[in-house]
């Protein structure tokens, strides 16, 4: 595949020929992907094809066995664990399928958490968190704890939390997986709108076509390999 040899060009985040095995299973076997600033990319493919693994590699949570991940000109594998953590704190945001909010904290505190982890003062963090809750139309749950809100509300809180640090890339792994279609679409509408308005790129893992339709383009992963990359790059 010639794609792997091309320089990353105008890409903000690029994965080049990633390989990753867990024991005997090869989760990734040559995945290549480029994300430009502000674009929403849907990662699709059958279950077990390696989508989540690709996402984790891109976000620097998992270290690939081979291949490179380049973010803004820096190679992630060259960074130490704490540098990668710092990068995730300041530049990346995350939304997962479920179980991601700290049950003891209120929704507002959950949204403010990433800011506080990067050292923002509590008052300021909560002020900014309130703004994001507002934009995701969940202001009314600010004082409730995750156990007391609906799945859709919780997911919007999670999206607010991913966006609160103004990240340049948001990684979302099946963000609507646990929601019905109406709620899922509502989350996606607010999510993509908010990401577009703040200029964040989104890597969206999903196998729901209607969710993928909120993306700018899609990348298909099959057996740990990406396809269709050349056609859009």
């Amino acid at each position, binding site marked *: 595949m010639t794609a792997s040899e091309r320089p990353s060009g105008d890409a903000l985040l690029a994965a080049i020929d990633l390989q990753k095995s867990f024991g005997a299973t090869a989760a990734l076997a040559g995945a290549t992907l480029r994300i430009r600033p502000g674009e929403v990319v*849907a990662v*699709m493919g*059958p279950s077990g094809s390696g989508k989540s693994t690709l996402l984790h590699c891109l976000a620097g949570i998992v270290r690939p066995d081979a291949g490179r991940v380049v973010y803004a000109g820096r190679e992630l594998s060259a960074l130490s664990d704490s540098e990668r953590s710092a990068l995730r704190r300041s530049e990346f945001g995350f939304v997962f399928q479920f179980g991601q909010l700290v049950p003891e904290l209120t929704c507002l505190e959950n949204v403010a958490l990433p800011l506080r982890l990067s050292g923002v003062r509590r008052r300021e963090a909560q002020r900014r968190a309130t703004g994001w809750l507002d934009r995701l139309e969940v202001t009314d749950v600010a004082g409730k704890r995750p156990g007391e809100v609906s799945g859709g509300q919780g997911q919007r809180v999670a999206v607010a939390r991913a966006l609160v640090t103004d990240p340049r890339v948001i990684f979302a792994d099946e963000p609507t997986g646990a929601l019905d279609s109406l709620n899922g679409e509502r989350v996606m*509408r607010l999510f993509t709108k908010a990401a577009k308005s703040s200029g964040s790129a989104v890597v969206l893992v999903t*196998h*729901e*076509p*209607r969710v*993928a*339709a*909120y*993306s*700018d383009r*899609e990348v*298909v992963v*099959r057996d740990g390999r990406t*396809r*269709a990359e050349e*056609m859009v790059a």
Partner: protein
Amino acid sequence: MSIGQVFLGLLESRPSYGYDLKRSYDERFGQDRPLHFGQVYSTLSRLLKHGLIEVDGVEPGGGPERKRYAITGAGVTDVQRWLAQPEKPEPYLQSTLYAKVVLALLTERPAAEILDTQRTEHLRLMRELTQRKLDGDFTVQLISDHALFHLEADLRWLELTSARLDQLATVVRS
């Protein structure tokens, strides 16, 4: 999808007599509407006229004349172009897509690519519809949703088919 494109694809896999072509077509794509012999021979003569197929030989003997047809270089190019081009997403597309996939498998072309190409096309339209939905009023939203759900069903079928290509290949090639 036309009968001619299917015949071309079938002939690419191997040269056949008109009767065999009809049988293959009926078995795989005819569903419950078998071809008339008239349709078969008019299609074949059209393909002959355009130089996409040629007569490979004639079986002598009593009864009706038995001509064996084979695909020409121009015919192969035509099949290739047809397979590579995504269909315009619309409801009840499956029969065409199915024919394409089966013919790709028969002619040992990468069938998965056909599906991926089609998925891209579907998603492109879905994106458009989604955008229209986001910008439009309530009726537009409802109409777009209708189309989106149908397209999604298609896409689901695409996914399912691509997941079961190997299985399909063994069935088709047997």
